[in-house]
């Protein structure tokens, strides 16, 4: 069976950065947003190591603030370095998307032509 997590792993970092770019947020909110846009299997535990790595690489910065549920949590904001990395990610993502799309579009077109021939024949 196809392992969706492998496919998600590469893009997750960029998606997290994009969410943080929009506004200052923390782990749980990021998870909720990711789930809303379709990353159903994502849990807070999955994104925390990524957040830690992004912070270590200075792409994001954190401040401790009280969360809506009480405990103090790390709220993240994107740094200038992070913004540059994000635009680089997006450019690369578009290229990958275009390549995959083109390849599958050709297949789809061939399939359509085949169906059309069968109908006419």
């Amino acid at each position, binding site marked *: 069976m196809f392992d969706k997590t492998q496919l998600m792993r590469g893009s997750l970092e960029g998606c997290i950065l994009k969410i943080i770019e929009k506004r200052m947020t923390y*782990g*749980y909110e990021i998870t909720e947003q990711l789930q809303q846009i379709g990353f159903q299997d994502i*849990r*807070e*535990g*999955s994104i*925390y*190591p990524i957040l*830690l*790595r992004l912070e*270590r690489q200075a792409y994001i910065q954190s401040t*401790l603030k009280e*969360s809506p*549920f*009480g*405990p*103090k*949590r*790390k709220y993240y904001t994107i740094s200038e370095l992070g913004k540059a990395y994000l635009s680089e990610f997006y450019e690369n993502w578009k290229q990958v998307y275009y390549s995959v799309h083109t390849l599958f579009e050709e297949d789809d077109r061939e399939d359509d032509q085949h169906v059309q021939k069968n109908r006419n024949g």
Partner: protein
Amino acid sequence: MFRKTETDKMLKQEVKQLRGVYKKTYRDMNIYLGSFSLNYYAKQEVLLELAGICLENQKRNSPIEEVFNHNSKAFCNSLIENCKRKTVMEKLLEYAVVLVFLSLLGFLFICIAIEISEAYPDFSMMEPLYIKQGSLYCSAYNLLPLLGIPLLFFFMNQIQYRFVYASKGLLIFLLFIGYFIINMILQYVFKNILEESILVLPIFLTIFCLSIATVILCYAYFACQLKSNHGIQ
């Protein structure tokens, strides 16, 4: 050794509020992370975040296992990969502090032993010969910490990992008491040899230390195997 930061205080407050499975999950992860050589401040920050995650889920009444995809060990491993490690300086400092502490403790034990031997001359293991050769014995006494400290650290982490309910402080205290008792027994066992030649004692102590070190190493090796197989779920 490390100054208490604001993070430590906040962490203490948040951990106090944890209950049941949330507290257990936090504690297991804390112990697991503690068995790795992570930078103190970086580890405290991670723990604060973990406590926050557990506390939030406790308040929301949502199952904590789901947060870590039913595999908190894998979660901890990915944290460890991204967490700052202890620097060589930090390790040396830790080693030096324990060495000084054990040396002082050794000196204190020797002082106590001299007092006992003076008060009770019949106390067979405390012969005047031992007192005269105190400086030589002191250096032999310090041999064990020198050999044993790196192993001691490893051993303590393993033991705390295995017996999660035991406090690290209590275990260290018990180990010191054990160290003291073994030392007293050794003096008694080698009493006759000691009278013949004082130089034999450091040699025997070295052999004894090496034997203990071997036992600890074997234990640590198997404990490591156990840790990798029966770690946190």
